[in-house]
């Protein structure tokens, strides 16, 4: 029944599109462009959640040395980077017509970019090491990177507040249907995250098993997690 999950997910994503474009009202000043907000904010929150999972799984790996925790960290970092990339793409698309600029050095934008760089480094580190060393050192970086996020956020916030602020942060003013749409979109993206996570975990587990088989048959060093 492998097709059930993708089918369910597709139905949910289509419903999400319907809710965003038909149920949620069109914003008065920004117009249709504001719809990107529901994708943007949902991706941002899920991306951050994914990085928190990397942090927790890294601590769990160093305590227990279980390969499952290592695989969880690897998979969640990749998906978190994907969602953060979506945030960084949808943000400028929205900002260009609304703020009249692609990019501004606001605290949230800049810390998201810095976070993206950190997890890109994490993935590069994963690929330049192998075996148990890889799992151990990547876990250390996963912990260090997430501990640094509050410092990044507050330093950029102070830095901006001492300089002239070109553009004020976007205000609230969401109507109840807009909030409901955002929550629905958030739930959809969470389900998407869980789906991608278990898919990636399955692939990593299979790769691990294959490397075991290779190891016992040919005596080759396997380096899948």
């Amino acid at each position, binding site marked *: 029944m492998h097709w059930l999950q993708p089918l369910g997910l597709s139905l949910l994503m289509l419903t999400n599109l319907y809710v965003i474009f038909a149920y949620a009202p069109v914003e008065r000043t920004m117009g249709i462009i504001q719809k990107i907000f529901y994708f943007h904010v949902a991706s941002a929150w899920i991306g951050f959640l994914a990085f928190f999972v990397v942090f927790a799984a890294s601590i769990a790996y*160093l305590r227990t040395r279980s390969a499952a925790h290592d695989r969880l960290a690897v998979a969640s970092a990749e998906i978190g980077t994907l969602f953060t990339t979506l945030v960084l793409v949808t943000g400028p698309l929205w900002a260009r017509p609304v703020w009249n600029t692609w990019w501004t050095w606001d605290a949230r934008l800049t810390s998201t970019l*810095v976070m993206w*760089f*950190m997890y890109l*480094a994490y993935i*590069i*580190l994963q690929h*330049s*090491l192998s075996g148990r*060393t890889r799992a*151990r*050192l990547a*876990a*250390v*970086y996963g*912990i*260090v*990177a997430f*501990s*640094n996020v509050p*410092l*990044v956020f*507050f*330093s*950029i916030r*102070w*830095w901006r507040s*001492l300089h002239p602020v070109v553009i004020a942060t976007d205000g609230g003013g969401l109507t109840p249907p807009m909030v409901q749409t955002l929550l629905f979109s958030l739930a959809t993206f969470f389900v998407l995250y869980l789906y991608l996570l278990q898919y990636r975990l399955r692939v990593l587990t299979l790769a691990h098993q294959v490397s075991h088989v290779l190891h016992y048959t040919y005596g080759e060093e396997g380096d899948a997690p």
Partner: protein
Amino acid sequence: MNRYFGQIALLVGKDLRETVRRPASLLAALVFAVLLLFIFSLQLQAMPVRSQDWAAAFFWTILLFASFFTMNQSFAKEQEHDCHLGLLLAIEEKSVLFLAKALSNFLLLLVLTAAIIPLSIIFWDLRGPLDVPLLLTAMVLGNLGLSCIATLFAGITWQAQEQPVLLPILALPISIPLLLALVELTRAALGPGGSWSPWLYMIALFDVLFLMLPILLFDFILEV
């Protein structure tokens, strides 16, 4: 406790003696820093901006890049004749090795800094009212933070394949809060600046975090 600090002092002494006898990598970092300084000055002298405005930013960027040159080697060089295995057997706790390397890297950074400051004052024509105590505070706390991050990640990258490029890739995003704070603090020291006390707190917080985290995590980094 005495033995702990005794071992740190012994290792720092060893690293410094080694640098004095074989100064090639420190000299290379120094030449690289001077080249960067020259290239930035050359391009910026034609632009209509006051040197006080950008001097701090370029100063720390130059130091950051040059520091990777020397620190890349801080653990990798111990691989010669499997020296790292002997070191790991000899020390009481693995954090000894981190603190010793961080301290000797810190001293090397101070040498680099002392060499670049006069050159940048000459090249960039900095003649504002210098706040010397503030400048010294920025140099000491800033270099301490830089050496802690670079030592932590050098401990990770010497075990990896793309070792030379990996250190800046790992360390640069992490060092952004420190870099922003250092630039603001140094800018305040170079001329009549705004409020700098939050930046001093930020640097102190960063230094404490990146002294404590590696002490906690170094056992996992140097597992044999």
